[in-house]
């Protein structure tokens, strides 16, 4: 697509200018991967490296969490941000892991990325569908930015506040208890406990996770169905009210577990119980589980 090639050049130009003028110590973007359908996050520190930057239909990785590697430097860091990266950045600001004035956000209008696994199967000239997370995307563009690459667009506004409903969650809810459990157990029977879903997630910002820490007696290192389910449910609870629906956990899971089914259920319940809430839009707003209302629904009288 013409414009994406042009944008790539603009991207590189912007990045080079930033690094040369020392406006930021590093620029975070995407570069080509090993195959035509794969890109990789690129964390560049030298101007000449910016030639590696690319903007195509497979820039799938969420870049926000790489800002955590720059917590100890006091220089600025520039980052290319689609809607999901922007929400990831706000997530980390809300958890006080980075501060806004140390991040130089370069906004990009995201057309929605293609599914790299399907691309590998179908080949280069087939018609490749959008990635699942991009199909359901509600915020393709960053809501606020310092720079913008491509034709300027007025910043996207937060969506109309109404409680979200996810069809796959609804259909799962109709099943009988045993079927639901069978489905849930079948998914987490496969889990390898490689923790890729945790390490990619911008809502998981702990210094030391209870799952990587045998001194905490929460979980055993054994890989069995029960421990895997405890990990899955606990992580879902930990990112409750924090998940920005970037879908990365589900996308990169080596054994393709539909992790978002749990997160979407909690997002849907939060919207219906405590009022519509989109994580990562504004670091100042109250986290659903970090606050309460006297008028919260009452079921335990």
């Amino acid at each position, binding site marked *: 697509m013409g414009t994406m090639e042009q944008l790539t050049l603009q991207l590189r130009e912007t990045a080079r200018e930033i690094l040369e003028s020392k406006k930021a110590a590093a620029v975070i973007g995407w570069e080509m991967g090993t195959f035509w359908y794969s890109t990789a996050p690129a964390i560049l520190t030298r101007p000449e490296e910016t030639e590696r930057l690319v903007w195509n239909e497979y820039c799938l990785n969420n870049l926000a969490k790489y800002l955590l590697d720059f917590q100890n430097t006091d220089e600025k860091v520039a980052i290319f941000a689609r809607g999901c990266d922007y929400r990831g950045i706000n997530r980390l600001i809300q958890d006080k892991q980075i501060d806004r004035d140390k991040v130089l956000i370069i906004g990009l209008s995201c057309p929605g990325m293609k599914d790299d696994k399907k691309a590998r199967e179908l080949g280069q000239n087939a018609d490749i569908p959008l990635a699942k997370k991009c199909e359901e995307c509600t915020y393709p563009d960053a809501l606020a930015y310092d720079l913008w690459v491509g034709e300027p667009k007025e910043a996207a506004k937060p969506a109309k506040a109404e409680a979200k409903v996810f069809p796959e969650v609804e259909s799962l809810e109709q099943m009988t208890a045993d079927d639901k459990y069978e489905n849930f157990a079948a998914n987490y029977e496969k889990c*390898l406990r490689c923790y890729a879903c945790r*390490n990619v997630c911008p809502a998981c910002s702990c210094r030391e996770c209870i799952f990587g*820490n045998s001194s905490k007696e929460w979980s055993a*290192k054994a890989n069995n169905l029960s421990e895997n389910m405890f990990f899955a449910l606990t992580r879902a609870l930990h990112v409750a009210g924090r998940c920005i629906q970037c879908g990365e956990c589900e996308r990169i899971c080596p054994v393709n577990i539909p992790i978002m089914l749990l997160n979407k259920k909690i997002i849907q319940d939060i919207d219906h119980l405590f009022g519509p809430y989109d994580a990562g839009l504004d670091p100042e707003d109250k986290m659903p589980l970090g606050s309460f209302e006297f008028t919260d629904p009452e079921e335990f009288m």
Partner: protein
Amino acid sequence: MFTVQESEIRDLLNVLNKEYKVFVPAKVGDESKFVPYEDNVEFCWDRNVLLSVKDKFFPQTEPLYKFKTKRQNLEIEPLAPKDEPVLLFGVRSCDLQALNCLDQVFLTKGFVDEFYRTKREQATIVALGCNEAEDTCFCTAMGVDPQKGHGADIQAHWLQGKFALEALTDKGQKIIDTLKSYLKEENLEVPETKGFQLQPDMDGVPEKLKGMFDSDLWTEVARKCLNCGACTYICPTCHCFDMSQDVRGEEGFKYRCWDSCMFEEYTLMAGGHNPRPTKKERVRNRFLHKLCYFPERYNMLLCTGCGRCLSVCPVNLHITSIIDKVKEAN
């Protein structure tokens, strides 16, 4: 060489299933792995399975012994390994070479791991040649012959709708003898495996790596790594493990479970010191172990080019590009 029609492979496997517990490569949902053979199994012949046979010999979680403490005295009850003759049908050359690597670790240099050894001896392996490589495959670059499985009892090929079997050991020969009624003696020409997109040049890389401990290649390369354990848990040659116990009151089981050098806790010392504190050290360690330390100790690469880590790595940190970068580095 003896052949059997692909359509009759199920009967052949049923015969074998009487004597051995037969595992076959199968598609299970979006993944593929070795599963016990049943009639409704959906075979996966066209490409290598995602989850290798590693966990058949070195399970992710394996109880080693049961213990009971009563005040000061301690009773230990070793757990007898289940003796269950197993037949793995359709193991690819890269996975067999990986098994060979595991053999070095678990069976040689004076350390014999009983649990691993019994499973290894009880296993009969039917290797399967690859007709076509996937885009992530690069076994030839790592010195592996896709058409000849190392240490297999029978070498099979999937050609023209038939399976050609060729005994490599007398155990293999005995099996072929028992299956005579299904087999037809004929010689098929084994084609060369085609479709390799990646050909990393390993020449001189292990020696060069010896001097590259302090190179800032590792800082550059490690920036994008998430430090998750996906590559290590999917890799057929990774063999690091940790010990833990499942305790109930004063009884418990001591078990072994996979661990990953990518996890921070892996090298966390008791006092809180961590010799590999950041992900740069961990990424460096992973590739040095595979391409330098292991060859130095067992003169054998700890990477067989199966390409699984290329397909699962979320950030495209591929060992092939590392090898290329090492070659380029001055």
